[in-house]
């Protein structure tokens, strides 16, 4: 791995398992197949950051069908989490995490920002179909790393790199088509990352007063989430908006009932 940032290498003993990246201050995401040499009952891994800092972590949830894994750091990382985003057709993208310093950085254009894709694990994912200008014929070592959309003031996280598509005439060689699970897909797959589960509790409140009170509690509680580096500002704003909408929607429905 090269460069300093929120992307990491996952290591077990002396063996590098693959790439991953911080999604929040505590959670690291990777492709499940990067951990195929890690026994199912073994959870302890090391997370190596680009500056050489090694942190202990535990595998939280492995999803072989969706080819995604969530890992939790024992201690929060001071490295800033990325800003998550969605992409559009023809957006320029890059994969900042390279297997070795001698490997090139991948980049290209987004072909499909949200396509339905059946990954090798068998699950149907909402995926990015990417065209890469860096034609290597084999992209081994790049999976599990982040995919970023390049914008005028920096980069935005849009997915996790998972698969290459083979050249149909030479199946041993990869085409320049790559697939990545979108950030939305990652968040939907893991309960630990879903604000939706939290705000579904709104539905259980009988009265408007109870609803507003619960919403207020959540808003107050969310003040600490960013301080604890669980979420970045964008994610926090999205959750607060979701809470506010749920309160308003719930109140209207209950008034009309």
């Amino acid at each position, binding site marked *: 791995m090269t460069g300093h940032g929120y992307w990491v290498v996952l290591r077990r003993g002396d063996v*590098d*398992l*693959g790439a991953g990246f911080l999604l929040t201050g505590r959670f690291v995401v990777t*492709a499940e*197949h*990067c951990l*195929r*040499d890690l026994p199912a009952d073994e959870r302890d891994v090391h997370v190596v950051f680009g500056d050489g800092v090694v942190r202990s972590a535990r595998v939280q949830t492995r999803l072989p069908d969706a*080819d995604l894994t969530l890992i939790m750091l024992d201690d929060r990382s001071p490295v800033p989490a990325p800003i998550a985003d969605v992409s559009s057709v023809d957006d320029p993208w890059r994969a900042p995490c390279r*297997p070795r310093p001698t490997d090139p950085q991948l980049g290209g254009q987004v072909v499909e920002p949200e396509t339905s894709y059946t*990954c*090798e694990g068998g699950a149907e994912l909402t995926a990015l179909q990417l065209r890469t200008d860096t034609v290597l014929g084999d*992209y*081994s*070592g*790049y*999976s*599990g790393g982040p995919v970023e959309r390049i914008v005028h003031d920096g980069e935005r996280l849009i997915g996790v*790199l*998972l*698969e*290459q*598509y*083979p050249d149909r005439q030479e*199946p041993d060689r*990869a085409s320049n088509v*790559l*697939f990545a699970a979108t950030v939305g897909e990652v968040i939907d797959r893991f309960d630990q990352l879903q604000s939706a589960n939290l705000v579904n509790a709104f539905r259980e409140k009988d009265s408007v007063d109870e609803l507003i009170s619960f919403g207020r509690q959540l808003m107050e509680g969310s003040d600490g989430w960013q301080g604890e580096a669980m979420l970045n500002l964008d994610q926090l704003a999205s959750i607060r908006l979701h809470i506010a909408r749920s309160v308003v929607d719930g109140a209207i429905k209950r008034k009309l009932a």
Partner: protein
Amino acid sequence: MDDAWATAIRVETVELDASGSRQIASRRRTSSPLVERRQEIEQGIRAAVEVVRSSLSASDGEDSKGWRVSSVEATFGITLAAEAGVVLSKASAEATFEVTLTVERV
């Protein structure tokens, strides 16, 4: 074969399951001790010889008679392992062992 040497020699192996070919984690070359796979290699060569013999005897006409496998030649690559020992590695893009059978009329 000396026991110590036998355990130091490994043979390169591949996954038969085609799954994972689209996944792009780092690829690792896998190997097994030759002593553990020796029986399978011998069985494979015997089976190939048997296929040649039976196909010759099943053909029609005089030409099918009097043939035998006169030699078996195996080609393989050798890679020195980083720590110790050697790996019998790929002889071609696909195969670890290339086996050539020569048949001749008795």
